[in-house]
């Protein structure tokens, strides 16, 4: 389990989980009708890694659009990252947004409101 890569689909993002480097990313669009069918397996792999290791990690959100069902997946993920950070783990969350996309930026800021221990960075992309 050194790397998990899932190429982008029409309605699903590219997933790149580099377990060895502790760098994880979701990139592109996410609006599958059945989010669980898409996310359950990769997220389970991530959570297994999260619980069985203690290395610093960076999670990059590079989503240009996601639907409300995906928002739930992100919310759960943020909570797990915050929990890990609260237990002393180094967690950096990077939230990418296009410079003219206030909506994605705002959503990131809202998710960040609940983060105390995890470090959150907004990254503007041109």
């Amino acid at each position: 389990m050194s790397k998990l890569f899932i190429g982008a689909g029409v309605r699903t993002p590219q997933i790149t989980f580099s377990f060895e480097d502790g760098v994880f990313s979701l990139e592109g669009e996410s609006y599958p009708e059945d989010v669980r069918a898409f996310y359950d397996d990769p997220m389970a792999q991530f959570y297994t890694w999260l619980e069985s290791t203690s290395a610093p990690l960076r999670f990059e959100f590079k989503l240009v659009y996601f639907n409300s069902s995906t928002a739930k997946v992100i919310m759960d993920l943020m909570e797990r990252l915050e929990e890990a950070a609260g237990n002393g783990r180094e967690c950096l969350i990077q939230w990418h947004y296009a410079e003219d996309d206030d909506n994605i930026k705002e959503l990131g800021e809202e998710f960040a409101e609940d983060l105390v221990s995890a470090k959150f960075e907004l990254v503007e992309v041109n």
Partner: protein
Amino acid sequence: MNLPVPTLNIAEDAYRFRGELDRRDIISSYSGPLTDDILSSLGNSLRTKMEFDETDRKISRGVFSALVEQAQNIMRYSAETQAPPSGRDLEGKSLEDASLRFGMVLIGRTENGTWYVSCSNVINNDVVARLSQSISSLQGLDRKELGAMMKEQLRDGPPEGSKGAGVGWITIAREATGGFEFDFFPIMGTDKSYFTFKAYFE
């Protein structure tokens, strides 16, 4: 050879039908079984059109998002369904999930330039009150209030009977810069109603 004289010019009929769509400011329309692929195709062709129109990016993102949320509602909750024939391999899905769900999607732009996304589907009468109440509760809330509500709902988990995250309507309400409206129409002689939700973007 004597061919039968057609009673109706089918091109004229189609042209008049098309004219009716124009009269209602409809740019894209779909009525029938809704699937993820239909949604993506409708959405992507609209995005291209809005890009060619040089539509404000904020508006085109809002229209796309409302289309996704509303179309996925139809795919999850429309009471007009068709189950696969018995004996068919359901590929691990429940009969309910493998069934087709029907609805209508209309996307258009009014004369003054306001974009709208209107979706309709049949629902059972027993969900009308609950649906009406939950959408009404979003009327008049500002972005910040809707954002707080969304997070609370995401944290609490979906309400009973929800197949998504339970925040679809909040998402649309948040992005519909020109507001939204909805209504129900009882279908005579049945225990069903027709439901329409229309979101505006300006």
